[in-house]
């Protein structure tokens, strides 16, 4: 059996080499749905991050008690609990934002990034590795969401977080803040990421 990555490796891998959106293509439903503005995208990323961190640590702590055929039930139970807490906190302190995100907050329960991390990392490694993994993957998810949302918001409204970014003469591309804009932006950014990756791996290695 191959050696499992250390906590710091887990952390680094999540951000870019194994980015949940661009490299693993997981969690695309919220990625496409809440990236019409940077603010909802960042709120979503923080919500997913908190749930992922708590779920990963709890699952890691009870990993020796898990029964193989009941593990998914336990993952879902743990995730659902923290999602409910995040949902309640949002509707108590960020009411308008919670209405904007609507059903996508409860839908974090079935976010495959979190179930995937519980399965791949937390149910096999200690709490430190699980926490490092959670933070790394959340940063990667946040980075992906922010990149898509920034492109869509700037091109679609000419503004970023309400600050004008483009000359007033710029006609807003309304399609960018509509659902098709999500597919266009994500497709192009994904192609860009793949292109950079191909270029880096094909480049002659120095010292070889």
């Amino acid at each position: 059996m191959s050696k499992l990555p250390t906590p710091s490796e887990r952390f680094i891998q999540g951000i870019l080499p194994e980015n949940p959106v661009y490299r693993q293509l997981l969690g695309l439903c919220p990625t496409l749905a809440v990236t019409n503005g940077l603010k909802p995208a960042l709120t979503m990323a923080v919500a997913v991050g908190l749930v992922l961190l708590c779920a990963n640590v709890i699952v890691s702590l009870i990993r020796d008690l898990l029964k193989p055929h009941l593990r998914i039930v336990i993952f879902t139970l743990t995730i659902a609990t923290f999602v409910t807490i995040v949902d309640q906190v949002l509707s108590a302190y960020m009411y308008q934002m919670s209405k904007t995100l609507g059903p996508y907050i409860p839908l974090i329960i079935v976010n495959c990034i979190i179930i995937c991390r519980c399965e791949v990392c937390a149910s096999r490694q200690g709490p430190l590795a699980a926490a490092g993994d959670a933070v790394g993957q959340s940063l990667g998810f946040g980075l992906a969401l922010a990149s898509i949302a920034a492109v869509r918001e700037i091109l679609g409204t000419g503004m970023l977080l309400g600050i004008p970014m483009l000359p007033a003469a710029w006609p807003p591309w309304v399609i960018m803040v509509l659902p098709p804009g999500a597919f266009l932006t994500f497709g192009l950014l994904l192609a860009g990421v793949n292109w950079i990756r191909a270029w880096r791996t094909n480049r002659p290695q120095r010292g070889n």
Partner: protein
Amino acid sequence: MGKTVKNSSILSRGCFQNSFLAQAWLVIVLAVSFGTALAFVQISLSEVIAANKLDETLTQVPALVWGENAAQYAADINIPLEIIPGTVSVKKGQKTTYYPLYRVSRGKVISGWVVKARGQGYADNIEVLIGVDPDVETITGLFILEQKETPGLGNKITFPAWREQFAGRKTAKPFVVVKEKSTASNTIDTVTGATISSRSVADIVNQTVIDIKGRLTSQTVHTGEGQ
């Protein structure tokens, strides 16, 4: 002899391993402790959430009675208006339904009522605010307070373009949701791909109108925070 002992020990171990508790104890323990934790979160946050919802309701009330523009105008020139919360109870056989509502008035003149009603949607309950004129003859506005309909389809019932169809319509005939454009006085265009969500809202409005029509008088409406 030795064989029997071995067999029975396997048997008893097997019994324990296959028993419901041995399999599920972790699920049960986690469910109970998570449930307790959630109860505490609920207790500590429910008041804040209820206050947020009340706030939202109260900001919607003037526009639901006067329309968006008139309400904005009234707010701009500081026309004082009075919003009094209350409830009206409707007895239907064994069951009594309570409608929370708000009476909107200027001075002594009642401008209209905003009634909170709920009903089953495609997914979960839909909660709406319905603005009506003093005699419930005309719908003056509709706002969706809560819904969990399908994003991209059913949730379009919250869009102004759809819900504003109700504003200014007579309540004499129940609303009917149609797929093709119609000139009849009581038809509402469906949200494309979300006939059930559209019909649910129309049904909630129809039911509410039937229940409250002729019942909104000072005798039947209990003002003050109640129910």
